[in-house]
């Protein structure tokens, strides 16, 4: 395979691919939350997030690093560091490579494939405890390319599945699960997102996209249920929040939006508590002993 990919990733301990069949179920928001939670799980944890949703990158906005540029060093591309000088939380996305944020990336498969290869082989990932990879919806070029290029480090790969509770999303999830089995990708578990919404006014819980579907599916398909996240308007706003700053900052695109305070504000949300539990379960599942026993899934 590609020797430079295995070289680049040789000091990456775990590669977690976030997958969902359907779009808009919260892959990117879960990826960001997972990265933040892993980052805070230990004072020395080194985390990076790679966004391979090439035609709709949203990670930069959510992490508050929209408008940043990727720097080229003699040793390859340098990821954008969300925590700046600490350099423990890196981020890479096609969003950083676009001239204007409204530019569309209209690429067919082969070009996407080449971009993904570059992300894996030309980025200076360095030493990482966790590399979280956010994917586009479906089971197509991006996913196949990713798995193909990551084949040399297959033993360090695992995946987290994200779904919403309604039937339409679960049907796509079933397809996604078949995909992981076909490509022999270990599944750490499933997260049910947008599970219920608490009315900010009267506290009534509405199951906008139904509820419990993910947990049921886990029982049926013998998967670990990692947890359910309700719709959290605070979080939606937070992930969107850099918007105001971003638009007023367009004159100075290099001026960092406050990605650090964004991360701190995240820890005040209810979602972050639930996500911490989920993250603990994920870390647990990644322990060497449990991973081998889980390997047959």
């Amino acid at each position, binding site marked *: 395979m590609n020797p430079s990919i295995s070289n680049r990733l040789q000091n990456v301990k775990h590669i977690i691919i976030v997958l969902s069949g359907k779009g808009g179920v919260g892959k990117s928001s879960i990826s960001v939350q997972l990265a933040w939670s892993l980052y805070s799980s230990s004072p020395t944890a080194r985390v990076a997030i790679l966004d391979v949703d090439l035609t709709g990158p949203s990670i930069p*906005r959510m992490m508050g690093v929209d408008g940043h540029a990727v720097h080229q060093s003699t040793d390859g591309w340098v990821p954008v560091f969300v925590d700046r000088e600490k350099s423990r939380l890196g981020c890479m996305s096609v969003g950083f490579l676009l001239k204007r*944020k409204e530019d569309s990336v209209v690429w067919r*498969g082969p070009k996407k494939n080449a971009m993904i290869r570059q992300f894996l082989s030309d980025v200076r990932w360095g030493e990482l405890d966790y590399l979280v990879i956010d994917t*586009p919806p479906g089971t*197509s*070029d991006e996913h196949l390319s990713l798995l193909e290029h990551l084949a040399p480090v297959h033993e360090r790969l695992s995946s987290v599945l994200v779904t919403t509770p309604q039937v339409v999303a679960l049907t796509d999830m079933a397809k996604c699960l078949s995909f992981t089995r076909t490509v022999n990708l270990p599944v750490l578990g499933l997260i049910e997102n947008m599970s219920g919404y608490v009315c900010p006014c009267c506290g009534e819980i509405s199951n*906008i996209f139904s509820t419990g579907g993910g947990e049921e599916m886990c029982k049926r398909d013998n998967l670990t249920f990692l947890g359910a996240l309700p*719709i959290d308007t605070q979080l939606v706003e937070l992930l969107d929040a850099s918007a105001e700053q971003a638009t007023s900052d367009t004159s100075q695109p290099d001026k960092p939006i406050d990605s650090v305070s964004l991360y701190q504000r995240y820890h005040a949300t209810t979602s972050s508590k639930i996500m911490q539990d989920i993250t603990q379960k994920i870390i647990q599942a990644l322990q060497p002993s449990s991973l081998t026993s889980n390997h047959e899934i």
Partner: protein
Amino acid sequence: MTGATVPENAPDHCPGVESEQAGKADACNGCANQEICASDKPKGPDPALPLIRERMRHVKRKILVLSGKGGVGKSTFTAQLGWAFAADENFQTGIMDVDICGPSIPTILGIANEQVHSSASGWSPVYVQDNLGVMSVGFMLPSAKDAVMWRGPKKNGLIAQFLKDVDWGELDWLVVDTPPGTSDEHLSVVQYLKESGIDGAVLVTTPQEVALQDVRREIDFCRKVGVRIIGLVENMAGFVCPNCKNTSEIFRPTTGGAARLAKECGIELLGSVPLDPRIGKSADYGVSFLDEYPDSPATTAFLDIIDRIQEILDKEGPSS
């Protein structure tokens, strides 16, 4: 137009995919498609094109439903559009689902377990009712659990087949539901339908900036490939609590929502549809939300938008 055969994403000085130099010129070094161009495959227009043109001669209106982001309600909107058009029995409507890796149209229309039948005149669409035919990859899978792990060219092949081999018959409307993004499926649909003419695209979004950002890319895509934009639909705008009847904003429009985007980009905001949990329920059960809950504010919003789309298209007469 110079370099009509030079792809949008080609490197500088691309000789054009149909040229003798394709894949061999200096500029081709490093292009991801170099091998494809350099191979001895016959060049020239796709042989499917004349067949598609013939089929599409019988289709009066072709509309694409697009969105940059996933899960904003493209398929749900497509289904409502189909149902609303089909409510008029003088209209024949077709829905084509080109979301090949995640087809949800069959579930939403309540025909998830149907199969496609082929006849002498081609594949027969699955009919929800007499005047509403549907084609989706979902009808072709042995089991709903099967993943379609296809790369671009295979998806394109199926899309071409949907357009040339499906016996759509005489249609007043053909509504095309697409997957999120701007990639193979979108390029193929646009290319295959270019000659027969696409009446326009309806863009669906939700109010938060993360979704709007993707819509901007979709607008850019439409302009690049020359598809006119009929307008923008804002979905999941505001949620009415069934208990206290107060409206709260789940996906808060932190940057002014679709209204501001529409104004900025000079496109029409066709309307905003509030979030009603019964929409998702109806989709799961495969029933028409418009028929089941005619009193919902969301139904009114949907119908107003659909009327507006008809009005816009009627104003300019037939496309072809």
